[in-house]
């Protein structure tokens, strides 16, 4: 039932995405920390951009997060003055909400979209492909230096300056991940992650690799 409401809501809002910017998110003042409109290009925010939340997140994860926020950026948000100092452990907890409100906000967030992405398959990688991409994730592209992920034993490993990817498969949309890895500038004016020029096959394999990371696999 819950998921049904979300599907209906998100369907509604993606049809009328221009209307979706107001409402509950505004009432709750989410816009004081998050960018909610594509037009707000001048302001600098203290939280991640949400004006493309409908492209980026899985609706179920959004509701879950708003009920029970978890830390995604162990090093803090990249624009915060404390980011490089490593004192982000003292970040205040994210606002949380009762079930119904959380679901309604998640539905509203799913209506915030900026692009039409190309679709990427989320079919799991074969064992061999997975081993290959894991190697590249750690060595060729140094992703692990800045991102937490899971090693073969199911343990969390990696740097903390980027968002944790341990739960990427439950949190992010595959199409968005592929888009991010090829054209991050669509989503953020200036990030701290290096740009990569992956060939199309590697790009899709990386996306599928990240979509296999799920927190249920933590051991």
């Amino acid at each position: 039932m819950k998921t049904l409401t979300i599907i209906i809501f998100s369907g509604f809002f993606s049809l009328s995405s221009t209307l979706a910017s107001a409402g509950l998110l505004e009432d709750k003042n989410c816009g004081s920390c998050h960018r909610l409109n594509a037009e707000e290009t001048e302001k600098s925010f203290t939280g991640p951009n949400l004006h493309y939340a409908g492209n980026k997140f899985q609706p179920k994860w959004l509701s879950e997060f708003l009920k029970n926020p978890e830390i995604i950026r162990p090093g803090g948000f990249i624009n915060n003055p404390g980011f490089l100092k490593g004192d982000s452990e003292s970040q205040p907890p994210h606002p949380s909400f009762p079930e119904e409100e959380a679901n309604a906000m998640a539905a509203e967030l799913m209506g915030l979209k900026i692009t039409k992405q190309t679709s990427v398959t989320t079919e799991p990688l074969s064992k061999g492909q997975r081993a290959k991409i894991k190697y590249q994730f750690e060595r060729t592209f140094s992703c692990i230096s800045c991102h937490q992920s899971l090693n073969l034993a199911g343990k969390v490993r990696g740097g903390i300056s980027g968002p944790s990817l341990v739960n990427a498969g439950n949190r992010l949309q595959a199409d968005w991940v592929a888009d991010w890895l090829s054209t991050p500038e669509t989503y953020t004016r200036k990030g701290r992650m290096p740009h990569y020029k992956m060939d199309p096959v590697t790009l899709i394999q990386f996306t599928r690799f990240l979509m296999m990371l799920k927190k249920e696999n933590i051991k």
Partner: protein
Amino acid sequence: MILTLWVTGCGQNEQTAPAIKPPTQQEVGKTISQTPQPVLAQVTEKTRQTYQWYCAQCHGMKGKGDGINAKFLTVPPRNHTKAEYLETRTDEQLFEAIKFGGLSVGRAPCMPAWGHTLDEDTIHSLVQYIRELCQCQAL
């Protein structure tokens, strides 16, 4: 692409500069024994900001190798204030490490490649900034 390389090659690219430099130095009447000095990239406020924005995540705000990722890496980020090691590396080696990543110069893969993020002039200026941090030159 080829054009950009060509243009920077004619600008302050330190590798190509020495070829045109020596005659002028002699004309000016400097000591003949002096080896030609390459034109060094300038360290500007922008260089420092670039270092803070990207490199400090691992190398730390002061370049001491103590950024927020440092304790999670299998090989620690290089301390850019330590002359002993950096004296043993040429500017070209540092340039390559930044542009193509640690693996390209036989160092650890934890050091990412910045060649698709930063242009060559910026990378040259970062090399000079690291020389400022270590207060050292290649021996």
